[in-house]
């Protein structure tokens, strides 16, 4: 049997994992499901593209690709700046809207507001860039043969490598550093964290920054592997939430493994049942986990 579907699932899972990490951190530390998180992927992808365009204009030539990849160091640099800008966008939205709602209202208010933010951010992208799909590179890539008949393009392998790198970095950040310790403390008990001396507002800002930046990287990865569209992030929202919940809310390794599980489950469904069932997979996984093990694979039981 050709195991190519596993490779495809792994690549999609890597993108989902990066997005789901932001979802799980926001959910755990701010205690609400941010439905605008998908838009951070789209904004990250478009910001990278715009920065690459600006850099190309300044240099007088498009940013060069580095063989065998379809992009080069230039776009990678633009992606890093876009990640910082997307983190800044998340901070700005929190300062203007979510923080006020946190101080006054309940989590439900924030969830509903995030729907509104999502629509506004997407509409803004459509107004600025139209709904026409765009690409970082028009170059065709030859897939390299791997084991068991599986093939992957250099870009796909690069996305997987970047995911592993970032996953390791974020896991170390959360597990081994002072800011990570504070994030875990705020996720468990913000009032106690405050009286211990933790600046909860600063931790929340760090959470937005990190979540937004990771989403932007996921957006660039998705744009590189598929295409850049204003609705690209919104379409990944449910799989990202499924990944975060499968892994256990608040758990970064959980979000990463959850992302891979959802990606591979989607690819397996497409291979054996039919592509029209792909979107149902996230729902099915979400419902199954919530029924059988609501705390997810790595989440703490309530």
């Amino acid at each position, binding site marked *: 049997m050709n195991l190519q579907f596993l490779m495809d699932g792994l690549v999609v899972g890597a993108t989902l994992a990066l997005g789901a990490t932001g979802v799980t951190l926001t959910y755990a530390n701010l205690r609400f499901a941010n439905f605008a998180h998908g838009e951070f992927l789209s904004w990250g992808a478009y910001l990278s593209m715009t920065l690459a365009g600006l850099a190309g204009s300044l240099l007088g030539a498009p940013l060069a690709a580095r063989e065998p990849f379809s992009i080069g160091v230039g776009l990678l640099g633009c992606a890093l700046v876009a990640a910082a800008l997307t983190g800044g966008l998340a901070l700005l939205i929190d300062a203007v809207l979510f923080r006020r709602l946190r101080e006054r209202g309940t989590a439900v208010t924030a969830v509903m507001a995030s729907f509104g933010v999502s629509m506004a951010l997407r509409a803004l992208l459509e107004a600025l860039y139209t709904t026409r799909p765009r690409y970082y590179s028009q170059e065709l890539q030859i897939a390299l043969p791997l084991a068991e008949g599986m093939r992957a393009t250099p870009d796909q392998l690069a996305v997987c490598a970047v995911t592993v790198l970032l996953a390791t970095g974020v896991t170390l950040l959360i597990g081994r550093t002072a800011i990570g310790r504070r994030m875990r*403390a705020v996720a*468990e008990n913000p*009032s106690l964290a*405050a009286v*211990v*001396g*933790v*600046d909860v507002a600063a931790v929340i800002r760090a959470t937005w920054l990190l979540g937004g930046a990771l989403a932007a990287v996921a957006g660039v990865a998705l744009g590189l592997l598929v295409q850049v569209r204003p609705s690209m992030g919104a379409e990944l929202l449910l799989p990202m939430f499924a990944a975060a919940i499968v892994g256990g809310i608040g758990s970064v390794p959980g979000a990463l493994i959850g992302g891979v599980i959802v990606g591979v489950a989607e690819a397996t469904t497409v291979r054996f049942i039919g592509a029209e069932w792909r979107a149902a997979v996230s729902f099915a996984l979400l419902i199954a986990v919530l029924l059988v093990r609501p705390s997810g694979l790595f989440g*703490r039981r309530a």
Partner: protein
Amino acid sequence: MNLALAVDGLIAGYEPGTPIVAGASVGVAPGEIVAVLGPNGAGKSTLLKAVAGLVPIQSGQVRLGEADLIREPAHRRAALGLGYVPQLENVFAALSVEDNLALAADVGPRAGRHAQLQQALALFPEIGLRRRQLAGRLSGGQRQMLAVARALLGRPRVLLLDEPSAGLSPKIVGELFTRIRAIARGGVGILLVEQNVRAARAIADRVVVLVQGQNRLEGTPAALERDPELAALYIGRATGAGA
């Protein structure tokens, strides 16, 4: 006398217009242990939460030494030297004992952190033995010890302890109170809320009795022991003072 903590005419509560603490005043000198007693619903725990910055204060004064705490958020109050140990959920169960301690140690200046940690662990050696364990796996007594040890790492001038004896065996309460006395001897002012009147009398230098968010009685434990009103407040006998 210079007070480590001075609370004056405090009005505080979750909703504006419905104060739970309705004008309470209490002062704690350095090294002094003051116990707040009172019947259920007297506002004792809310008083501590308001001082710690977790319950909105409508009016009154809260000073930690020279510092006015009223406008300071909870984390700044901790940094200024106010330690608070809540009655329930007073440790981070999903964090290791070491991480619980490090959270508080991170707040202060880097210099002296190690010595501070060693000092806290010397006072609570049973915590030091379980540094890598998740705090959620500790017994009730060990959690209380960890919570107090963690509060000490913030280098407090005043410690607020909300019913530290709740749910603990008399033996553990005795051990805990011995450590609390040792902390006070080091110059830290301690304001503790107690339901356990006998325990509070045993440890406190001074007792303040709150009823309906206001000071009702105040004095040394020995003097209050002879006060018929205190007994009446606890056994519900009518005193004419209302409770």
